[in-house]
């Protein structure tokens, strides 16, 4: 388990894997435009784990899904910003990043599941109930590793089999593959895939992969399912793994093991992880850095220890207050009065003012930017300079606690 | 089969303050209206109903029986546009326009009466079975199974053939055939809803069985019935038209199915109007109600609810 303290400082300067800049995702709703994600920026560096925390509905999941362009549209709209992504090769060759929002669908397909993988909240829902585990995991390899499947002497492989290795075959073709002359070759193909799948499953410490492969999801336990999901996600050894509340659907005992597993695999593969959760205690265990999201905005970012020891933003403090100690499991966010405001056609203002004890008139008129305070970033007018805003010092809100 | 697709539809609002129900209803309405095909269906229905209601205004009612075609034996097979016969006349000199207009009335009567009867019977039987349950349920459901085992049209055909083709007999035949579905829906719904907490809650608060039934169970069971009823409004007219085609229809009645089958032979000889217009009406009628029913189902059925 990576204790934050142990995290080498090099991480801070490690090369970027993803750089999100001013990401905006809006949803068309009856009332108008809901700004689900409203100008979010953050980086994920090589090998680090970034925790994206916030209440349900604050836009963290939407942010994560934007990476793979999985936001349903309509009603979703990518309203602005970019997500730059450096794959291993580009990093090695020092090439230019690709903008995940800009590239063609074809390129996106190549990245999904191969360079960037995702683990979903509820493994029970995320696995196709009518498809055997083996087949489901296999799909990843067919999709991204077809060349290896055919093996080096690909020119000698009949087209039909090559098509099969890319899952391009149609019904009749699949039938033909069961007959000579293709039978031998397609069987061989099948064997190679099975080997890879078994390997991937073994990675996640699944006791008897070969057996599991023929099983159907409903025959597996929740934890088992999630392991399968992880195996599937890490099958192609991606640069970035997005884990969207990977444990909330599991019971507490399983949770820990799954988290260990993720952390451990990340160590071995050097994968960067974007860990999304509303559970502070878990974030604290898992992440090198955290970004606190509120109402489609990032209100505070920084290294996990710093943020947890000295939270700056009133909202973050609220959260902390809800988690008296790191030892206590399951930090809940009910301590703060009220709930996340509707973000439909917002006016320039601090998103949090409706719930903020310290809110002053200015908070209702001015939209705070993410300011660097020490090596943390915080979006609160209390830390802004009156001069830059061109307002009297007195009109700034005062946030009690550690002085600036 | 019906058991399998366990009825899991969302109930119309029947709880909480009046305002809430109204808001929910408005929501449903808005949802329904968001679908252009449903709107199209509604428009057609409204048009057809207006026509039915204005029949005596649009045409000079025939005496003694306005539901009989007025026949002008000197004016047979007149093409559309003939003065006095905007849509032409049939081979017996019947005015096609009159048939089309009053046919709407006939269809309306037919479908409303049959739906009325079948829904009532269905609700009663289904409620008894579902709410009282036990032996009674077993027996009633077997009866329902028996009725469901015979395809609708065939059953109606067999009955009508025996009773003879008077309007009332056709109504009877169709009622006998169509009630079962409702009984089954209602029962399934009740069984389903009985498991919902608020019914138990109501029981705890010591409501009498019947008041639970009236206040909670029945209103909640109504939605799928509404969907089915809407569809049947079309299906009934279609079935009746088919019976007329096979030869079970009241003579000279202003009914679309009769007109279609009488006029069909003429089509290929260029006398297309006598059957085309009525045929179109049957089609529109069935189409409209099916579209609306389908739209309703989409909204009221959570399986397709928006996430």
């Amino acid at each position, binding site marked *: 388990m990576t204790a934050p303290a142990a995290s080498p400082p090099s991480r801070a300067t490690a090369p970027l894997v993803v750089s999100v800049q001013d990401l905006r995702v809006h949803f068309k709703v009856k009332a108008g435009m809901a700004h689900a994600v409203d100008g979010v920026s953050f980086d994920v560096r090589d090998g680090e784990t970034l925790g994206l925390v916030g209440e349900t509905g604050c836009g963290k999941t939407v942010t994560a899904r934007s990476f793979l362009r999985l936001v349903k549209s309509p009603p979703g709209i990518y309203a602005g910003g970019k997500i730059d992504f450096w794959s291993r090769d580009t990093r090695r060759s020092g090439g230019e990043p690709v903008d995940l929002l800009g590239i063609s669908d074809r390129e996106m397909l190549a990245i999904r599941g191969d360079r960037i993988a995702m683990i979903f909240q509820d493994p029970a829902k995320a696995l196709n109930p009518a498809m055997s585990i083996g087949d489901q995991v296999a799909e990843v390899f067919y999709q991204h590793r077809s060349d290896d499947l055919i093996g080096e002497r690909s020119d000698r492989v009949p087209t039909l089999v090559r098509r099969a290795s890319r899952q391009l075959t149609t019904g009749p073709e699949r039938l033909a593959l069961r007959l000579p002359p293709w039978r031998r070759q397609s069987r061989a193909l099948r064997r190679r895939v099975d080997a890879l799948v078994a390997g991937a499953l073994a990675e996640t410490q699944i006791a008897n992969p070969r057996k599991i492969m023929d099983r159907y999801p*409903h025959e597996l336990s929740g934890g088992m399912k999630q392991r399968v999901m992880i195996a599937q996600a890490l099958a192609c050894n991606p640069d970035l793994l997005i884990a969207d509340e990977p444990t909330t659907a599991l019971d507490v005992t399983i949770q820990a093991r799954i988290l260990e597993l993720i952390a451990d695999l990340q160590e071995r593969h050097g994968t960067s992880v974007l860990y999304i959760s509303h559970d502070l205690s878990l974030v604290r265990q898992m992440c090198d850095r955290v970004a606190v999201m509120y109402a489609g905005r990032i209100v505070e970012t920084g290294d996990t220890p710093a943020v947890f020891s000295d939270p700056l933003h009133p909202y973050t403090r609220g959260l902390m207050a809800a988690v008296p100690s790191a030892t206590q499991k399951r930090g809940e966010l009910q301590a703060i009065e009220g709930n996340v405001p509707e973000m439909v056609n917002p006016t320039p203002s601090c998103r949090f003012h409706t719930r903020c004890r310290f809110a002053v008139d200015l908070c209702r008129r001015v939209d705070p930017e993410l300011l660097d305070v020490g090596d943390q970033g915080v979006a609160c007018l209390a830390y802004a300079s009156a001069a830059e805003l061109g307002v009297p010092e007195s009109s700034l809100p005062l946030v009690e606690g550690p002085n600036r | 089969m019906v058991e*399998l697709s366990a009825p899991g539809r969302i109930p119309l609002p029947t709880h909480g303050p009046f305002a809430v129900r109204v808001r929910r209803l408005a929501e449903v309405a808005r949802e329904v209206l968001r679908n252009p095909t449903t709107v199209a269906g509604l428009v057609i229905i409204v048009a057809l109903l207006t026509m039915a209601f204005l029949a005596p205004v649009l045409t000079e009612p025939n005496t003694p029986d306005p539901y009989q075609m007025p026949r002008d034996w000197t004016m047979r097979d007149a093409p559309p546009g003939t003065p006095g016969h905007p849509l032409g006349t049939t081979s017996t000199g019947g005015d096609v326009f009159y048939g089309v207009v009053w046919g709407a009335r006939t269809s309306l009567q037919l479908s409303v009466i049959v739906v009325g009867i079948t829904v009532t019977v269905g609700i009663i039987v289904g409620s008894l079975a579902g709410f009282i349950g036990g032996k009674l349920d077993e027996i009633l459901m077997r009866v329902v199974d028996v009725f469901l085992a015979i395809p609708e049209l065939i059953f109606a055909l*067999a009955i009508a053939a025996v009773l003879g083709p008077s309007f009332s007999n056709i109504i009877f035949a169709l009622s006998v055939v169509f009630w079962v579905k409702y009984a089954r829906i209602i029962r399934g719904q009740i069984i389903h809803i009985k498991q919902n907490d608020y019914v138990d809650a109501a029981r705890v608060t010591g409501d009498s069985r019947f008041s639970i039934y009236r206040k909670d169970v029945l209103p909640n069971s109504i939605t799928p019935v509404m969907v089915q009823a809407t569809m049947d409004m079309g299906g009934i007219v279609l079935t009746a038209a088919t019976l007329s085609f096979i030869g079970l229809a009241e003579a000279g009645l202003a009914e679309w199915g009769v007109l279609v089958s009488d006029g069909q032979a003429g089509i290929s000889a260029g006398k297309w109007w006598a059957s085309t217009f009525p045929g179109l009406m049957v*089609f529109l009628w069935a189409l409209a109600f099916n579209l609306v029913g*389908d739209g309703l189902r989409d909204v009221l059925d959570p399986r397709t609810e928006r996430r």
Partner: protein
Amino acid sequence: MQIREYILRRLMIFPLIIIGTSIIVFTLSRVGGNPIAIYLEHEMTPAEVAEIEERYGLNDPLPVQYLAWAGGVLTGDMGWSGVSAQPVTEALLDRVGATLELALFAAVVAVTLGIGLGTFGGARRDRLPDHLTRVFSISGASMPIFWFAILLLILFWVNLGWVSIGRSDPTIFASIAHPTGLYTVDAILAGSLTAFLDALAYMALPAITLGFGATAIIARMMRSSLVEELNEDYVDAARAKGLPEKLVLRRHARRNALIPTVTVIGLGFGFLLQGTVVVEIIFRWPGLGRWMADAVLRGDQATIMAYVLFTSVLFLAVNLIVDVMYAYLDRRVVLGA
């Protein structure tokens, strides 16, 4: 597990239902109708009528008559079919092939069309193509078959002369043997391409007319379950794996959407069965449907009873099979989840 029990229960009540049906059928013929109507002429004297009633044992008490009939049914003797001037059982066997073959091909039309339209619409939910397919498929269910069929005949038979009506060309019919009564199958058995194509040619219009009617049922179900499946997480998961939309739809969403769609095929089959009555009249199809229509018009109760009973048994059987298939297909159901 519930499904297994459910099917067992269905199997147990199966005979009950059939007995119930037979009672309804019998009651219709005796209480309502005149069981010998077909043998009556309006000039007959009461004496002659009495003589015929005697011949058909109508003077016995009803229960006795019922048992006599039911017993006959069990031993394969369902009486004499006036409309076809042969024993009912024989007539039934002569015609069942025609109707089944027609219904089968119509089912193929309906299922392919239905699933195709449903998928197409569901994948493009609430956009123009969806609305168009919806209207198209529902049109099928709303079309008065007898009207539609005549229009088709006028176009393809009278005006274009592409097809003829009936079930086969008599010459070609005579050219091969017909062991099964399914002409396409017979043709294959006889290895005669000519006969096979002939059978198809005659089948085309009726099958399309009939199938179009049943399309809606399947298309609507397919659409809604596809929409439902497309909202499932595993679809996004599949996308996240990098599968192209085509595969996501074909391999994941559609495959699962097909499962609930199976359940309505039974319903659709009932629709086809009753559709054959009209279609067979118009296309001169020598099947059970027309037999029934004839019997209805000419009051041949023996035939009506046999037909209705047979149809409902067939209908029940199909639905039972459908349920079994469903139980087999949907693992979630078997789990009882």
